[in-house]
């Protein structure tokens, strides 16, 4: 069955680069002690951070590559750039942003998004945040929303007290790498009892070929506060490998509610190796909403440590793997306190030989009584060349824990397509509809604009799958 279908999508939106971006402090490729020293020096960092970076670098060098997950053998650390900065100074108002960067943001729809519902926008262009606005009423409430470099300078005590307490450099090889060369990212502090009623969001982009991006995000939600942070990524397409290795740390103090939403659409040559971890204290709620499209290999397992009684954790993720792509993702929940609850929902779609892997950990510690946990993974395979695997690890050390695990693997049936097409919908649209419907439990958790964007990306990914 063959139909031709014109999708109403601006393809150029997802595949462009700026030709006239000029980079200051462009480093040579490769990583050594001197590069790490230089990064710290350019940023004029306090000595403790310099030493932290060096300690992390040493660990990175001696730590072997992980022996599990995706194929990392083609990743060449010597071919990467570890630091680049387009402008020296950060801008606060839209007028100060260089015009070529504005054009890039226009293509990504940032100003529109801002007009509609943004409180603050931190848009990361290369390694430095060039545009950062914070609505006044947020500042009045004592909320800090800054790029991480600025936060280190302006809030040194708050920063030092929490930084790397959730993800220490020794956690894994890529956390060590990030800790050594990190640049940019978002820093958020929400004071006790304060609710941030609009989502805070930052747009991240990789623009230089072979440039690694190592942003570092730290969110501290004080007691009984509430915040939703959104991070979206759209990378231009390049032919050689690129590395993205972020660390995200979240601290949800007692009674706090934090939601962290990500949609990432990396170009198909990017290695996306991310460590995301949250601490949730008593009665706090932590939610990861994590969408992964594109990339050559993504290894990302958002985790939640439930540290106090009554804490809740939720991980909702979606992965889409096309040709030559491997999405190795999932979630980890560590129940360390009684009466904690968690839910992991994972949806994955593989097509054109793409591969998705669900890798999850559910740990219930001795003494964590009355734990409840639900894990559900659904995989959709769009053809017989694609692949999906599920690796759920359960370590349950309390007898009264209530845990359920459900996993399904589905295919799109001929009858389903026939049914939708009999209503006038083209095969292409019908396929997209089924895939979007499959992802709906995820999409409905997104703000409207992101849901639309995600659906467009899916339609784009689905284009050409009819033949």
């Amino acid at each position, binding site marked *: 069955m063959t139909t031709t279908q014109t999708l109403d999508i601006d393809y150029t939106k997802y595949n462009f680069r700026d030709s006239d971006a000029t980079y200051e402090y462009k480093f040579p490729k490769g990583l050594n002690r001197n590069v790490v020293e230089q990064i710290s020096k350019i940023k004029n960092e306090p000595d403790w951070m310099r030493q932290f970076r060096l300690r992390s670098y040493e660990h990175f060098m001696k730590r072997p590559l992980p022996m599990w997950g995706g194929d990392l053998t083609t990743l060449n650390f010597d071919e990467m750039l570890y630091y680049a900065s387009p402008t020296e100074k950060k801008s606060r108002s839209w007028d100060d942003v260089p015009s070529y960067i504005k054009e890039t943001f226009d293509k990504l729809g940032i100003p529109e998004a801002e007009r509609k519902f943004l409180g603050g926008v931190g848009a990361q262009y290369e390694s430095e945040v060039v545009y950062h606005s914070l609505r006044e009423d947020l500042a009045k409430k004592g909320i800090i929303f800054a790029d991480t470099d600025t936060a280190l300078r302006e809030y040194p005590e708050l920063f030092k007290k929490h930084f790397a307490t959730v993800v220490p450099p020794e956690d894994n090889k890529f956390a060590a790498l990030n800790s050594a060369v990190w640049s940019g990212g978002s820093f958020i502090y929400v004071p006790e009892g304060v609710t941030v009623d609009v989502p805070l969001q930052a747009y991240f982009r990789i623009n230089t070929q072979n440039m690694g991006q190592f942003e570092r995000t730290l969110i501290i939600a004080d007691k009984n506060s509430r915040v939703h942070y959104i991070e979206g990524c759209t990378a231009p397409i390049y032919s050689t490998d690129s590395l993205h290795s972020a660390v995200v740390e979240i601290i949800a103090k007692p009674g706090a509610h934090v939601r962290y939403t990500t949609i990432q659409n990396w170009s198909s040559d990017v290695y996306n190796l991310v460590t995301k971890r949250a601490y949730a204290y008593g009665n706090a709620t932590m939610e990861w909403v994590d969408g992964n499209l594109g990339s050559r290999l993504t290894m990302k397992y958002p985790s939640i440590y439930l540290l106090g009684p009554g804490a809740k954790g939720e991980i909702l993720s979606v992965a889409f793997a096309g040709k030559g792509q491997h999405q190795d993702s999932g979630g980890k929940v560590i129940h360390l306190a009684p009466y904690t609850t968690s839910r992991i929902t994972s949806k994955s779609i593989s097509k054109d030989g793409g591969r998705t892997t669900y890798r999850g950990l559910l740990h219930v510690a001795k003494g964590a009584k009355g734990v409840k946990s639900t894990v559900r993974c659904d995989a959709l395979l769009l053809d017989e060349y694609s692949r999906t695997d599920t690796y759920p690890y359960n370590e349950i050390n309390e007898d009264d824990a209530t845990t359920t695990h459900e996993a399904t693997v589905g295919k799109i049936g001929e009858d389903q397509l026939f049914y939708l097409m009999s*209503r006038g*919908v083209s095969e292409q649209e019908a396929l997209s509809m089924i895939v979007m419907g499959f992802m709906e439990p995820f999409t409905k958790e997104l703000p409207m604009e992101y849901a639309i964007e995600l659906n467009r990306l899916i339609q784009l990914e689905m284009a050409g799958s009819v033949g």
Partner: protein
Amino acid sequence: MILLLTTLEIKDLHVSIEGKQILKGVNLKVSQGEIHAVMGPNGSGKSTLANTLMGHPKYKVDGGDILVNGESIVGLTPDLRARKGLFLAFQYPLEISGVPLAQFLRTAYRSIKGDGQQKTEAKGVGGEMISALAFKKKFEEKLKEVDLDASFAKRYLNEGFSGGEKKRAEILQMAILQPSIAIMDETDSGLDIDAIRKVAEVVAHMAGPEIGVLLITHYQRILEYIKPQFVHIMAHGRIFQSGGPELAKMLEERGYEWIAGDCGDSSVRKTLTTHVMREAVES
């Protein structure tokens, strides 16, 4: 002015599934404004006919032709057939998770009603809004007619619907998409008598010069509410008798055995007899 009526013409249609011949030369002509009933026992090829007309890829046309307004549609995919005005109310509607009914129907509506609609909407946000509102109004109106409550707009396509709700949702789709020729595949099966009456009333209400109906059934009950002008009896992949409403009446009085007797084919006689017995047990 000449009034152009859409005509569906089936000529000597031969169809097989996975190499097995099911339809062995079916001839039938349905025009807008007419109601035809195709009756016959299980296995006679009724559902094959319905699915073939709509273009299910599993059903292979080995011979003959299907024409809409004189043009063959045999090579067309189901979506293109829908755009030519055909509609199939499924015997077993499929469940599509995550696709809200109203949203789906709006997409379908726009696909079928074509460019004119899309151009209006492309004019800007205002045009889109009005159209969305108009659609919502139409949708809610039809929802009421088929006796489904407002929550169905946001429910996923057929997911978790009861048997009766699924059939009513099919009629709802038909009412909104306004086909020229509607094929209804055993819409009455699996429904109790009240549900049949409800569904039939809506169809009867829709019937008129605008729509041609090909009603496929093996019970006569639904014909009490939807009065066909033409009745065709099908068995063993062929239509072997066509007539007016009196044919259905005769079937009701005398059962399929009368036809089987007429037909003189003992295997048909056996099938039909079995069918009549089963129907007697069920009712």
